């Protein structure tokens, strides 16, 4: 599968950049024939991934870098969110619904990423960082690819 378009953005790990990230991805994704619900799902998934990088990866240190890469394929969209933060010790535990290290948070970040993408891959090395890769089928070609 070869990407027909790609963009990468790096930004500081500040909370205000969560909205920038999701709007940027939604704008880029609109090159595909996304429905409005699909765009909403993409925005939530990006918010969760970037939010996790800032809160958990960098523990709210604001001078770190989050790297966001978006690739457009004929069948859909791939979104990669990378941080060089503290990493996740136990990925299976972190991905469990309602698991959170913070009582004010719902532990739904990975649940939404899973629900709103067709494939989710989380790679993490404690002390080195985390990479979250999501792929979402879009449009008629996407629906056919998903069915196959």
């Amino acid at each position, binding site marked *: 599968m070869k990407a027909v378009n790609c963009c990468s953005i790096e930004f500081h790990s500040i909370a205000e*950049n969560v*909205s920038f990230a999701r709007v940027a991805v939604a704008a880029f994704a609109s090159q595909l024939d996304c429905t409005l619900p699909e765009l909403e799902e993409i925005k939530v998934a990006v918010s969760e991934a970037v939010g996790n990088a800032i809160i958990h990866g960098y523990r709210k240190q604001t001078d770190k870098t989050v790297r966001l890469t978006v690739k457009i394929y004929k069948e859909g969209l791939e979104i990669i969110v990378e941080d060089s933060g503290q990493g996740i010790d136990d990925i299976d535990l972190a991905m469990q619904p309602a698991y959170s290290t913070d*009582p004010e*948070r*719902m532990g739904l970040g990975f649940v939404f990423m899973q629900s709103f993408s067709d494939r989710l891959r989380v790679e993490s090395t404690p002390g080195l960082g985390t990479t979250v890769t999501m792929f979402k089928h879009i449009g008629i070609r996407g629906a056919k690819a998903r069915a196959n």
Partner: protein
Amino acid sequence: MLAGDADRYRTKMDALLVRLSGDLDLGVADKLRITLDEHLNTKKIKYLIMNLSRVTFVDSSGLGVILGRYKKLTPFGGKVILVGAQPQVKRILELSGLMQIMESYLDEANALAKIV
């Protein structure tokens, strides 16, 4: 007006009506949590009515603020009541399970009628 700002806070007896607007995400969660708690702590509020009709986006950070206020009020017989969520916001509220534990109404009048 900043996104996620509570543009209006109105108190009626032991009920606080908050009209939120914009995106409820990590960028506004801390500020909203602090502002809401200031009102809840100083005015002996039992019922928090959150008008979400002008909220355009919510993620788990925004949901966390709502759930946190629910956890704060329910041990004392209080409630968080959600009003007028747009379809895309309502869907996230439903998926999270918040709609199952909180009352929701189409408009403020209906919500207020239930508690006054």
